[in-house]
């Protein structure tokens, strides 16, 4: 397999007149589990959306496994933020997961029994098989997130982009989701996750990408997840505790 799952050169993007991303240059090695972190409004979601061409790029070149997006779309899975869809839509969990297979099923064809079995298998993996026929409006936030994850799993992609999969879920769901991400990594897949909890970064990710309008730092978590980089990305207004020791980063202002 190609050494780099993702290569981004000189990427920039904007909303109306405000540039939200500029000078993004990064290369992600195949098989990495990357945490994308940065303050609110740093452009984390926009970064994902722009490289996946869901948001127009102003400049830049993006390659996946050495190829443009168009040629490798089927090898890429995207898990949008949970809040980006209408959970009142009349459908059940199994049906949402089956949607992950629509790309493979092809235009105008109906999903068959094998497809439904595959979707069921993915639901089992995320511990949701008992809720297969439950209306999605009746699922809790954590359950909805698991359904989204199952939908990504059935895609059997080589690379996954996930936008805040751990936002607003309980501890059990967080653990279940992280176990699955770890399994994906073991299977040689590349996973990029927008993450907001600094305290768990070191436990969860082998690579970390600090983003604030541009890339502040990228590399192995052990070398990159330093106080210096955190201050640089968050502008110094940050306080967090880990284990027994409490660390305070003082604001320079």
């Amino acid at each position, binding site marked *: 397999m190609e050494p780099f799952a993702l290569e981004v050169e000189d990427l920039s993007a904007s909303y109306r007149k405000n540039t939200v991303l500029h000078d993004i240059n990064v290369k992600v090695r195949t098989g990495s589990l990357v945490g994308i972190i940065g303050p609110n409004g740093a452009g984390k979601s926009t970064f994902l959306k722009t490289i996946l061409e869901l948001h127009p790029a102003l400049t830049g070149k993006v390659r996946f496994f050495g190829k443009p997006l168009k040629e490798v779309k089927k090898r890429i899975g995207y898990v949008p933020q949970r809040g980006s869809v209408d959970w009142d839509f009349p459908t059940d969990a199994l*049906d949402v997961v089956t949607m992950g297979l629509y790309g493979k099923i092809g235009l105008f064809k109906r999903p068959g029994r094998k497809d439904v079995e595959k979707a069921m298998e993915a639901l089992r993996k995320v511990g949701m098989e008992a809720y297969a026929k439950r209306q999605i409006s009746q699922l809790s936030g954590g359950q909805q997130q698991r359904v989204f994850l199952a939908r990504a799993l059935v895609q059997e992609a080589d690379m996954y982009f996930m936008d805040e999969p751990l936002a607003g879920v309980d501890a059990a769901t967080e653990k279940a989701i992280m176990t699955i991400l770890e399994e994906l990594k073991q299977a040689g897949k590349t996973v990029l996750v927008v993450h907001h909890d600094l305290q768990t970064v070191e436990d969860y990710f082998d690579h970390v990408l600090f983003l604030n309008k541009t890339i502040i730092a990228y590399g192995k978590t052990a070398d990159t997840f330093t106080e210096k980089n955190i201050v640089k990305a968050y502008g110094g207004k940050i306080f967090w505790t880990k284990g027994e020791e409490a660390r305070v980063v003082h604001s320079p202002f």
Partner: protein
Amino acid sequence: MWSILLSSNMQWVLVSTMVLGVAAGAVGCLSYFRRQNLMSDSLAHAALPGVVLAFLVIGEKNMLVLIIGAAISALIGAFFIQLISTSSRISEDSSMGMILSIFYGFGIMLLTIANRSAGGNKSGLDNFIFGQAAAMVKTDVITMNILALVIIFALFIAFKEWKLYLFDPDFAQGIGLSSRGMNIFYTVLLVATIVVGIQAVGVILIAALMIIPAVSARYWAHSFSGMIILSALFGGLSGALGTFVSALGSGWPTGPFIVIAAAVVFIVSLLFGKEKGLLIRYIQFKKTQQHVQKRHLLVPATQEGDAE
């Protein structure tokens, strides 16, 4: 009163308003999930100037030509709504409101001119405002039916694509379903449904046939397919019923009767619908309340305190 059903023209007209209702009900579900219910209303009003202009150009009432004129005019309206809401700070519903009233005003102005021209007052163009199903002749009926069936077919074959596009457009785009393509497909389907129906139902009320059945179906369905089928059914029922009643009196407009029929279906759904209908919600609430009260009676007060 049943004797009017015996006339073969009336039977054809009934069939076509029913097929129209089915198409409008089904397509209405798409707008419902795009949260663009006002879109069909705006585009229907925007179709009026096209109808009158087409008549002024060819000088006679040819259904197909008038439909094409209506479609072009409605598509221009759709284009302007899109343009205004993406390139200015004006919100989508404001731009819909603007396009609706401007195009309709322009249409009425043209209609006044057309009615003053030679032969214009006998053209029956006024029927396009409130609809006059009984005024349709056989060729109108055939044109209308074919177009409505094409619309239903277009919705049916791309069923799973519609579902994905409406539920999660970002994900749809991610797996290679073009959002832009689906947007165009959606607008074309919407305009087609409207222009097919304007002679029978009229530009003012055709939107009701797209909005009300979908909203009613939401009270019963728990799947996307179920919702579309039910909405189509409600639309067809309202179309046929409204047409039938309006045919009882001479010169009664069809649109208002269809809307009243649809409204009756809605009220029944609101009250008795099994998904969030008012009655079922009340019963569920009472049941749970009783259940909880019973449990409270059985638990001794001391134990209750312990459980805290």
